[in-house]
């Protein structure tokens, strides 16, 4: 049992629960951010093989560079998803005047009739 990994996975679970349970769209996006941060945390933990940054000029006690190189992709994709979904939330709240999911569904169904 790896305690550090367990704790970072717990943060991941908090993010999943926020995304699934909360009704407000903005709170859901915050939960998505918590989830992504926990993924970053677990990758950093996996790559922790030494206290020094991954530079060639430093001695051999560096961190593993591969997880850090992959997590850059994750951070940029997370930023892109956050920006795009915020625009969708702004558009929806502009049209239906709410960010609550259940009220949104009701108003969209009312519009379709």
């Amino acid at each position, binding site marked *: 049992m790896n305690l550090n990994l367990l704790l970072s*996975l717990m943060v991941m679970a908090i993010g999943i*629960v926020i995304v699934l349970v909360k009704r407000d769209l903005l709170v859901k996006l915050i939960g998505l951010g918590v989830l992504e941060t926990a993924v970053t945390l677990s990758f950093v933990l996996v790559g922790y093989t030494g206290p020094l940054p991954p530079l060639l000029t430093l001695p051999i006690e560096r961190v593993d560079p591969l997880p850090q190189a992959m997590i850059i992709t994750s951070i940029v994709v997370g930023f892109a998803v956050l920006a795009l979904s*915020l*625009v969708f939330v702004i558009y929806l709240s502009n049209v239906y005047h709410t960010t609550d999911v259940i009220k949104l569904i009701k108003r969209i169904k009312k519009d379709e009739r």
Partner: protein
Amino acid sequence: MRKVSIIATIVSLAIILTVASFTKFTPHNANHYPLATELYDGSANIVSAIYLDFRLYDTLFEVLIFSVAITGVSFYSKRVKESGSISVDKSPLIRFELILLGFLTLVWGIYTAITGHLQPGGAFSGGAISASGIIVLTMALGTEKIHAITEQFELEWIENLVLFVVVAYAIFANVNGGFFSPGFRVGKVGQLFSGRGALLLNSSIGFKVFVGGWAIFYEFSKRKESV
């Protein structure tokens, strides 16, 4: 709603416990990438060597995703009415300090992006730092001036051009072994012109992230009070 929350909590806790109890971290060969970087790439920052050389296509599609997101943001935000503006602080001293801080942040981001292959940092973090410099400048100068400057440039067009720089680099790298051939401009570790195309790629991708962050901030700050 309560049922869903209980089920979600139990399922995620079960997943966590199984993953955490079956995972074992064996010390693997972490010297593989440092050795490859020293022999074939030549940049001091191993992370930069991985994402600009060994995994270039990863970066290419990452840049593509960023472009798609910015295009989507500027396309869909055209459908939302413009409202609100960022007010400027009245004190001239605070405004002066904000202008100074903004320019300093801008230059620091450029430096971080250009020397990304020599020290911790890189294109994406440098571009993000520069874009936050633009946010500080907006707080100092007000939205009207910054928006007037922004509307002179076609930001989405400029940042989409960088995509073609990366694609062209990837194509030329594969023609006759081009940039990927052994010994091509590897340079000495620690020099500015080392790490193959690191300088070109770092500066162009950093510029793209800077312009993209600026464009996103521009679109959001124009519709500040529409939520």
